[in-house]
């Protein structure tokens, strides 16, 4: 028995000295002198980017040295391709699928890095839009199916300079941006809604339908200036004035009227817009919860001083459908809208804090007499990290609603009244729902299968190919891919 105990002690000590006691046995680290003058970074070669292709943020890495070369001068370059195939299986003008693509290039110069002026950013971006527009060809709906849909072409998008102003502590509560700006990049944004494909989760229905040229939003922009002021860490005020229309002429297709985005028109009225944002948590907030449910709330207002045509009556007060009308619509001085946006986290998984459920809602109103759409709304839920260890994937379910103003419906009723026998349905509202999944393949590559269903397309409009019938409800299916070069 004693021998057995003795053997156990030997075994125990052996384990202790060879296992847990690595330090006792392991040799000291070797110190190797290095002559740094003899060292040089090897060339990565033409295909060097392949080495990190599964985890690089860019498909082509440093673009064969272009990115670091530009970085030396304070310039950053971003090139991204969004390509998609969307098709409608039911409803609309016709069924079928189309390809649509968008290449975005963006150059930013940091004036601090370039020539020592702190807080300045010069930005120039351009678009190459290619493919076919499904919503125009097949759907004829209000809430167009894809946020990248636009006329084919190459155009300058944004050209602006932003300057930060610093307080005595060195923080920058104020910055001013001047130049050609696209307002969908800063105003009316719901961060959760941006994951969806349908256009109206980005730049919403009310300004798209009601502002001249659809407003200064993709693929358009307008000259102006905007102030950003943070009176407190939780509060931000955005306010800007811009040319009243992104197009140099009214009435025409605004994209055709400014084919390359180089017209820089200043002949419109004035578009003034302001937005108040409240965010929780804010920088410097003391934390009171182990699982913070963050949120951002936005309230905004815009006013455009251009003249807006009445949707129903002429300048004599007659219906525009009245055969005796002179056809000149009554003009209203100015148009305006108020809006609110909510992004609120509802739940964070305790087991995996990357997994969270968020809610978003956005609603806006505009007067009914001078606008096609007098109310629009979006709402939905976004689940991040929906499956185990799919940290960067996103599952979203959302809806959009666009209400056609009673003036437009009234004109349709008048048309029916003055043209007996003509099928002139009174449009009401269009509702769409979308389910989407953003699949993170590589940091530079995402795939996004998408499904949308549109109830009452156009708010209930006549189908030109089926006399006496409305456009049928539309099921839109497709997939989007995004590549960062």
């Amino acid at each position, binding site marked *: 028995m004693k021998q057995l105990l003795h053997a156990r002690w030997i075994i125990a000590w052996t384990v202790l000295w060879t296992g847990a006691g690595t*330090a006792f046995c392991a040799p000291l680290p070797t110190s190797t002198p290095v002559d740094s003058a003899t060292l040089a970074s090897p060339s990565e070669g033409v295909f060097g980017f392949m080495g990190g292709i599964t985890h690089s943020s860019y498909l082509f890495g440093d673009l064969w040295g272009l990115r670091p070369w530009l970085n030396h001068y304070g310039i950053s370059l971003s090139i991204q391709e969004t390509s998609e195939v969307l098709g409608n299986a039911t409803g609309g003008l016709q069924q079928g699928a189309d390809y649509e693509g968008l290449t975005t290039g963006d150059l930013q110069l940091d004036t601090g890095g370039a020539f020592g002026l702190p807080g300045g950013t010069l930005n120039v971006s351009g678009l190459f839009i290619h493919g076919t527009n499904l919503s125009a060809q097949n759907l004829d709906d209000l809430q167009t199916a894809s946020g990248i849909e636009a006329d084919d072409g190459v155009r300058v998008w944004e050209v602006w300079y932003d300057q930060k102003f610093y307080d005595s502590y060195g923080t920058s509560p104020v910055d001013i941006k001047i130049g050609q700006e696209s307002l969908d990049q800063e105003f009316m944004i719901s961060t959760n809604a941006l994951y969806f494909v349908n256009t109206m989760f980005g730049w919403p229905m009310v300004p798209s339908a009601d502002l001249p040229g659809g407003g200064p939003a993709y693929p358009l922009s307008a000259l102006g200036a905007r102030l950003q002021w943070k009176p407190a860490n939780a509060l931000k005020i955005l306010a800007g004035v811009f040319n009243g229309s992104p197009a140099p002429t009214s009435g025409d297709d605004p994209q055709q009227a400014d084919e390359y985005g180089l017209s820089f028109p200043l002949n419109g009225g004035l578009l003034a817009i302001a937005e108040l944002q409240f965010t929780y948590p804010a920088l410097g907030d003391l934390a009171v919860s182990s699982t913070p449910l963050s949120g951002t709330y936005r309230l905004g207002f815009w006013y455009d001083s251009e003249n807006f045509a009445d949707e129903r009556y002429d300048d004599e007060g007659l219906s525009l459908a009245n055969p005796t009308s002179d056809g000149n619509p009554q003009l209203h001085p100015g148009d305006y809208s108020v809006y609110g946006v909510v992004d609120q986290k509802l739940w964070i998984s305790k087991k995996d804090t990357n997994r969270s459920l968020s809610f978003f809602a956005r609603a806006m109103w505009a007067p009914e007499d001078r606008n096609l759409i007098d109310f629009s709304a979006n709402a939905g839920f976004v689940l991040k990290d929906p499956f185990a260890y799919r940290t960067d994937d996103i599952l979203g379910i959302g809806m959009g609603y666009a209400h056609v103003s009673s003036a437009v419906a009234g004109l349709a009723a008048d048309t029916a009244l003055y043209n007996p026998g003509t099928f002139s349905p009174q449009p009401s509202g269009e509702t769409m729902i979308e389910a989407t999944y953003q699949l993170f393949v590589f940091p530079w590559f995402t795939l996004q299968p998408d499904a949308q269903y549109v109830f009452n397309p156009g708010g209930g409009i006549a189908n030109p190919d089926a006399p006496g019938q409305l456009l049928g409800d539309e099921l839109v299916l497709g997939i989007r891919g995004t590549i960062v070069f």
Partner: protein
Amino acid sequence: MNRRHTIRNKKSVRNGNMQLARFAASILLTGALLVAPGFAGPAGGGFLETIHHYVSVASTIPDNGDVNPYAVVVAPVSAGAIRRGDVLVDNFNGMSNLQGTGTTIMDYRPSTKEVNVFAVLPRRIPQCPVGVGLTTAMTMLKSGWVIVGSAPSTDGTTKTLGAGCLFVLDPNGRLVSVWTGPTIDAPWGNMAVIDNGDSAYLFISMAGFDVPGPDVVDPKTGYPPILHKATVLRLKLSIPAGQPPEVVDQTVIGSGFAQRADKDSFLVGPTGLVLSPDGQTLYVTDSAANQIVAISDPATRDDSAGIGRVVTHGGLLAGPLAMTMTPEGHLLVCNGKDGRAVEVDPETGAQLAAKWIDPDEAQSPPGNGDLFGLALSEDGKRLYYVQDDTNTLMEAVP
């Protein structure tokens, strides 16, 4: 003042009743933190209550485009290109955002508000196989030498993780020697140092040791497996005048720390190391276990304490990373999984307060993955930290 904290801390370990009482007090305090809206910290306050302004002081991107700043070190002396009080920041990622490929160290000078490149290492160094990926394991000695760890990868993940090494640079940013050996494997967390001028002790966490690639998952959980092979290594250095430091002794004083690969965060393991003012206790953030632990007698023990004893766990902590100590003797740690800094009384384990120092809504929860290194200014009044999302060095001031 600081000394008393640690002495009482040691007593609390030995006195069961006191420990129970303090545990109950910490529960009550933590409970108050969790339920009281507008909670402003305990009477007497802590460091976090004293800071009110958050200034972006410098971009941490050098000409070569390296990103993802990790280590933050305040220079203790002037030597070579470095002035006392300068803030050294290294980058873990190369320009393509591949983790474990960053080769640069920046130097921010608060007096002039200028930022310059202190060192650019080659992407490949034969003495340190695989490559170069500079980590949070960085320090500057009073003798002017800068020592920085490397946990290199070639594809941006732990699939190609090399054991790495420790680099020794002179105060002009020139690489002079490389330390490698079986106890050095992905030197990871911010170093704790006892610096006597001609000799020094370094305390470094090693988070490598067989960590697989991030695509290897445990079929039961669907997540990468958690290993328990990470260590805390003590290196004893001899620093002859005018000569680079040499390792003369080593001891693994902590072992069995949790570590795992992650496709977003690269590697999760023990990351923050700080000594009590009397040097009798080493505090370590055990990130993968969401806790802070304490190892006693770190400078003198000749064995491993395992992972030590738990000081605080969960609560406001969310994957705690780099750690430092306030003048009051509180632990200050930044979260990896949200944008908060958390202040902890090491004596009681009470989580005194947490403050949002990066509430970026682009991540979920806000600031998730943005924070890493942090350090206090010499006067102990200003906090330097990095924001990985914007690649900036921040300064939080009263």
